[in-house]
């Protein structure tokens, strides 16, 4: 792969080329612009640090740096002077990253949840107070989620033994049985693929993330909370209700919407539809802003 890319770019001189190799692996090639630069041993000196930082912020993984001389036909390159891993983030509207993971209820795969809504959530660590209140909260909304065809799946980088001990402790001390499985993501594979670790918050723990995945496996919503702030369970229920209402009725939901409130009729796409819209019996403030009761 690398040789093919190098061959492709070997003909080019005095340019900087960026080759996208895979969706999450990128190579940036730098070519020198002067004869004296090729004699420098420290290849990283040729890198524009500010520009590299910009690419890193955009999620590029720096693999290495190549130099060819000014004539363009002699490869001087050394590869991989610096490698950085950049957290990948899943994106709304795309397939949720697949996984197979050990949980407190056996090994599960993402595809096991096909046909159901899935709420995949992470917590920083077992046996911590905010997480305990959240687990109790998730257990309390579990029956409501079941009515909506939604499953819960927890995750942290603790071991399955730790998870089992903790959920048993929650049941014994708080009187709440945890009915959902919890992933033991010791190798952080799932956490990494979902962008759950935010080093600015903690380099070793997952943040309080929520991923809502629809029955077709599409990522529909994400919520990120910091370590210090417990999540609002009613908001998670409201979000599921809103997404299901959108799917069922092809409408949008306004700020602070809750089931029973009026919904937003999608804005017209053409002038003719806009003129028609005001005659369609909706509750309209203007042609683009119409609500209706379901």
């Amino acid at each position, binding site marked *: 792969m690398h040789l093919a890319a190098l061959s492709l770019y070997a003909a080019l001189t005095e340019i900087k080329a960026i080759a996208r190799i895979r969706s999450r692996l990128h190579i940036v090639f730098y070519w020198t612009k002067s004869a004296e630069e090729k004699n420098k041993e420290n290849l990283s000196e040729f890198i524009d640090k500010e520009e590299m930082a910009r690419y890193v912020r955009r999620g590029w993984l720096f693999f290495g740096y190549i130099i060819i001389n000014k004539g363009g036909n002699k490869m001087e390159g050394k590869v991989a002077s610096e490698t950085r891993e950049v957290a990948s983030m899943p994106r709304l509207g795309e397939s949720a990253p697949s996984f197979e993971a050990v949980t407190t*209820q*056996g*090994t*599960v*795969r993402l*595809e*096991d*949840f096909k*046909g*159901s809504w899935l709420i995949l959530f992470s917590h920083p660590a077992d046996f911590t107070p905010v997480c305990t209140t959240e687990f109790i909260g998730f257990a309390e909304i579990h029956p409501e989620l079941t009515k909506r065809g939604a*499953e819960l799946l927890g995750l942290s980088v603790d071991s399955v033994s730790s998870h089992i001990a903790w959920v048993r402790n929650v049941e014994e001390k708080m009187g709440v049985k945890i009915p959902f499985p919890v992933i033991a993501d010791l190798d952080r594979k799932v956490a990494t693929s979902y962008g759950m670790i935010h080093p600015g918050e903690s380099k070793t723990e997952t943040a309080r993330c929520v991923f809502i995945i629809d029955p077709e496996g599409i990522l529909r919503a994400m919520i990120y909370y910091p370590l210090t702030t417990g999540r609002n369970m009613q908001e998670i229920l409201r979000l599921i209700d809103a997404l299901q209402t959108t799917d069922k009725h092809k409408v949008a939901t306004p700020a602070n919407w809750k089931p029973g409130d009026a919904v937003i009729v999608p804005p017209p796409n053409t002038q003719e539809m806009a003129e028609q819209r005001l005659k369609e019996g909706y509750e309209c403030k203007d042609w683009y802003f119409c609500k209706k009761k379901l």
Partner: protein
Amino acid sequence: MPCINPDGTLTPSAKAMLSAVLSPATPEEVAKSTGLPLFRIRSSIREMREAGLVEEKEGKYLATRIGKEKSEG
């Protein structure tokens, strides 16, 4: 393996699932008859297949001879 105890006996949920596939059934049918979530049925059936307790035919699952013996044991 969550379906099989360290001593080789089956867990209660595994026995319930095996009982539900004494005649061919889909995962959805097993979920309905056992009251267990569909994801757990899919996950457990996968493990029971690997253990030779269940076999699949045209999208339906059926307990093998070993599976039947284990479910009765």
